[in-house]
Each structure stands twice: as C-alpha cells, then as structure tokens.
C-alpha cells in the first residue's frame, strides 16, 4: 500500500530530524500520539500538535510518560496506528508498557531522542546510551526491534520503516534518534505518497467464534483485531493462552515467551538494515550507528586519504542484533573498532558475536558531544600500529 497523498508533505524541505520524524509518522499512517514534554524530543510532538488537527489526527499531552506509553496502546486496540515520543528519563518510566506491548503483541512505536544519562544527565546534549535499555529494560524475556537514523532524511524514511515493522511483527519498535540527529537541520526529500510503502494493518477475516487473538492460523504471526468487530476479545499482561485468557503455569509461559522472542529472532535477515563499505580485505572495520555513522564515514575518508584500508559497517537496525553478519566479519577484516556515544553497549554485542576471533576495540565516551573524527582516526591508527 502507498501513503495517503492528502496528508504527505511531498517536496524538498530544510527541516530538523524531529520534524522529519513527525512528518514520516504522518506518512506512515500514524494518527494518534500521546506524549509528555521532554528535551530533546519535544519538537516531534509540537509539530504533530500543529499538524494533526488539520489532517484528522490527535495529539494528547498526558500527565506523564507512564500514561503516554499506555494511552497510545489503547488507540492501537481501537484500530489506529499510534506512537509515543520521549527521551531517556521518560523512556525509563515507559518500561512497564514496553513489557505490556510485548506481552499483548501490540504494534507499538516508541520514538526515543537520546540524551546523556543516567537520571537527568545532560538534557540538551547527545548520547547513544539507551541501546541496552530498549533491549532489556522491561522485566522478563521478550523481543524488540530498534532502528537508529543518521540524518533528518533517515528520520523521515525510517520512522515509516518502524511503523511497517510494528504491523508486521506486532512488538515494541524503537526509533533510536539522538539529540544531534533530532536537532540537525538538513535537506529532506519527502517523496510522492505513491512512492512511500506503507504496511496497512490487516484485521482478521475470521468471524466471531472462529477466531482466537493469539492463535497462529497462517503465516508466522497471530491475526490482528480491534474493538467493535464482534470478537469480544480479551488481552492481558498475564501469561495467556491462544484465547487471550490467563494461563498460570510454566508450560504456557514457556510456549508464549519463546514465541515472543522467536517471532523476531527468526526473521533477522528480513528485519535488519545496514550499510557496508570496503569491509573485505580491510585492516580495520568501524562499526557505528546513528549520528556516529556519519562521523565514521568522514573518518574513513581521512584514513583512506592516508592510505589506510578502512571498512565501514553502519547498523541501521540495532535490534534484533545481526549476529551472523557480525560473526562473519572475523573472516573479512583484521580488526574492529566500535564507535558509539556510550562506554560500551553495542561493543559488547560485537565482542560476543565475534567470539574474539578478531580484535574488537571501543571508541566511546559518556555522552555530551558527538565523537570527534580526529579521536576516531587516532584510535584506528593505534589499532593498525
């Protein structure tokens, strides 16, 4: 399906990542957003508060992030595409409902414009420190999807990807922006609506009495439903059977939770997006994501000008982690440098996936500024020495 031409802001724009994200959500079909003000994400909802009343959408500013993160899930079960928007401290409050979305298999998009933490940290300065929180932040085992954009253009393009993945996999999907990408002005081309691929929600065609909300009939996911279709559905955060009714035993728990993980893990190749450049035969490959991907690309240019063989791997999809791809790097490059604005999060995943068959180094700091290309270049040279 294509986007709705009556609402897509087709054309060339000079806007920041936050506004691009808001416009992308509109193009993806999002019509309900619940949020709470928090720097550096607020411009996303401010833009939607202006736009939505003109296109039949609604923004509601809730009393806190806990409320926001479940309010939009109520809209999803009404049949609407919806999301919430926040930053680190708000994300911490939302963890309860990340778990609810995972357990009830609610197509739930969370935008996280990252800042430096922990706690209030550096509200106006960037970081990439929520990577492990979105993966593991709610209690229990479950799977999530997370994407990190590197530019305002990607803020538009990949929030659409996030909504499409949410419909396909019915799980929490995180859009991991950061302060720099969110506030960076850049050229954004918003395509014609017909060029934007949008996955519409598919509701079950099975009549009441012949439908169970958590049963897999065809394909690999249960069939979606909304209120008012006559199915009299029940959802619960409790462990449940295929009817959605509580099932308080270890067997039901094991079956359900393994499925919540495998429904994502079994589709890594389908989900994961990344950019590769000159990895094969390189002396060092830089793995990065988000705004740091652009730092890495510029640094690679500097290094190659000096005759160094530097490869690049930019992860757009952070979760699920593309273990096979990362493990394979051991045969393709002689060393890996992971560049990220934290003190080691994806770094440890890379170490684990490569099983130390290739040296893995971290270039990171605790947040507050983007990584300097000079610092990254120097580390590359040290690794090559």
């Amino acid at each position, binding site marked *: 399906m294509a986007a709705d031409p009556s609402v897509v802001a087709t054309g060339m724009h000079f806007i920041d990542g936050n506004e691009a994200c808001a416009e992308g959500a509109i193009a993806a079909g999002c019509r*309900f957003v619940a949020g709470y003000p928090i720097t550096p994400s607020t411009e996303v909802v401010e833009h939607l508060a202006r736009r939505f*009343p003109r296109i039949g959408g609604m923004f509601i500013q809730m*009393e806190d992030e806990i409320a926001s993160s*479940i*309010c939009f*899930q*109520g809209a999803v*079960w009404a049949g609407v595409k919806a999301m919430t928007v926040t930053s680190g401290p708000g994300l911490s409050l939302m963890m309860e409902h990340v778990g609810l979305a995972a357990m009830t298999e609610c197509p739930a998009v969370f935008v996280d414009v990252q800042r430096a933490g922990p706690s209030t940290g550096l509200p106006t300065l960037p970081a990439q420190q929520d990577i492990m929180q979105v993966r593991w932040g709610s209690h229990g085992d479950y799977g999530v999807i997370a994407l990190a954009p590197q530019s305002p253009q990607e803020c538009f393009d990949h929030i659409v990807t996030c909504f499409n993945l949410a419909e396909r996999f019915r799980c929490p999907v995180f859009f991991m922006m950061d302060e720099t990408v969110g506030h960076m002005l850049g050229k954004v081309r918003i395509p014609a609506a017909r060029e934007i691929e949008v996955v519409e929600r598919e509701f079950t065609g099975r009549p009441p009495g012949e439908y169970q909300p958590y049963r897999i009939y065809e394909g690999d996911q249960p069939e979606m439903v909304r*209120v008012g279709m006559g199915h009299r559905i029940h*959802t619960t955060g409790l462990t449940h059977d295929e009817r959605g009714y509580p099932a308080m035993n270890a067997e039901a728990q094991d079956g359900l939770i393994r499925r919540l993980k495998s429904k994502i893990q079994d589709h890594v190749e389908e989900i994961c997006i990344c950019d590769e450049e000159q990895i094969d035969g390189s002396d060092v490959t830089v793995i990065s994501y988000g705004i740091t991907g652009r730092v890495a690309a510029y640094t690679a240019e500097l290094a190659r000008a000096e005759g160094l063989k530097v490869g690049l791997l930019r992860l757009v999809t952070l979760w699920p982690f593309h273990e096979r791809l990362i493990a394979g790097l051991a045969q393709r490059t002689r060393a890996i440098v992971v560049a990220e604005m934290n003190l080691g999060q994806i770094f440890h995943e890379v170490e684990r996936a490569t099983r130390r068959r290739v040296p893995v180094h971290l270039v990171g700091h605790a947040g507050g500024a983007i990584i300097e290309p000079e610092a990254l270049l120097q580390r590359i040279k040290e690794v090559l020495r």
Partner: protein
Amino acid sequence: MTAAPVNPVERLLRMERMPHIWCSGCGIGTSVNCFARAIEKAGIDFEHLHVVSGIGCSGRVAGYVDVDSFHTTHGRAIPFATGLALSRPTSKVVVYSGDGDLSAIGGNHLIHAARRNIDMTVICVNNFTYGMTGGQVTPTTPQTARASTTPYGNFEDTFNLPNLMDACGARFVARWTAYHVRQLTRSMTRALKMNGFTFIEVIAPCPTLYSRRNKLGDGVAMMQYYKERSRIANGAPTCDVEIGYQSEIVVGEFVERERPSFTENYERRMRAVLGDAFVPYEGTR
C-alpha cells in the same frame, strides 16, 4: 412452551471462565451483577462496550465480562481507556478497578481523566484493602483499621473519593455499598448513558482480609453493617461524606453537572481557530 428467561448476568459473562477467583462474601461479584443489569437497562449494545481494568481483585472484572476487554497494568487502566475512548467515539468505555489500583498507584491518572472530562465511566470497588496481595493498607483504609502493613492500625489520613472526583470536575459522582444493589444499578445505568467522566464508588466487603483482620465478621456481617449504618443523602456536599472506621457511610448520587467533554472542548477550540481547515479525529468510528 415459553423459553426460559435469560439471566442478564450470564449474558455478560465469559461463562467458560467460571468459577471466578473472588472469595465467598466478596462484594465485587455483586457489583458486576448490578453492572450487567445496568448495561441491559441502559440499552448498550455489547459490541459497543469496552471494559478496561488495572491489577488486583477488582482488576479481574475485565477478564470475566464477555465484551472487548483489557486487563492492563497496575494503576494504568485509565490512560489506556483514554486512548481507547478517544479513538472509538461510538463506544462506551468503562474502567472497572479497585481502590488501591485507581487511587494509589493510578491516582494521578484518575484526577487527570476527571479534569479532562474524558468520555468514560469509572467504577471503583472500594474494599479498603489490597486483596490480591494479602490485605495491605490503601489510601482509603479508615484510620485505626488494621492491615498487614499497618499491624498497629492505620494512622494515615484517607482519600474521600467522591470529594476528590468532585474537585476534579467529574460530571457524575455516586457512592453505594454492595447492599444497595437497586440503587447501584440505577446509578450505573445513569452513568452509562452520560457523556463525559462519570465515577461510581462501590463500598464492598473483603471478608477474607479486611474484615477478618479487623474481626468484623463475615460477608453477611458486613452487609448488616452497611444496612444499619448507611445513610442515603443524594446531593450531599462531598466534603461531608468521608468514611471512618465502622462509621456511618453516606451514600447516594452526590454530583451531577453539565460540562463539555474533552472531545467537545477540543473540537470547539479547533473549529474556532482553524475553521474549515479543522479535520476532527474520528479514530475508527
């Protein structure tokens, strides 16, 4: 031969889930009985009724009613119901939960939903305790009553829920006990037919935990207490309806006021500012 009359309560229940988890003498089931009759009386189509609960004994109501129903997280039924109600304007959304869920962990959401005048009916079963976790103190446990976390008697001041809801601007506020089944059914019916935020407090016995720990007898003894010590005072000022330990319980319909709902306010403002450029949010109408 005439067909056997259909029990209105059974029609509302997911009978395959019976027996329920509630103890004998508990008042939650009584309130659900009244709720089923009220839906019938209000003429609400089951396909256009959605019930949302939080966590706790009363939070299990959503699991037993045979309508689209959502058992959410502790204290968060109201914000879930807010997103649902705004996105489904042709349906009636009811939040059914307990005093701990709605007024302690969910207290912030309760006051803001009333302030916004979101289209929903909140039914708060107040049994003065957290039953599911073993009888701990809640914001409504009367002073001196014992709970597992107030072994020497509760010393905190309590919420007077009708007064709180009145102050927040609720359109309709009523309180009955589990003894007042006809009055409760009538108030539920009225609330279900109204737009905006309506609130009903149901004082209900918890014989297993609250009554036993306080040596107040079984469910029948609590009914006796409600019968003897309740005073009907429709329109009573809500500041006068506080409940003390085994005190008189003032019951009735306390508040009824006209006030534009959240959606009415939203649409009026947007039309005034944007004129024809305004496109109302219809959700999945």
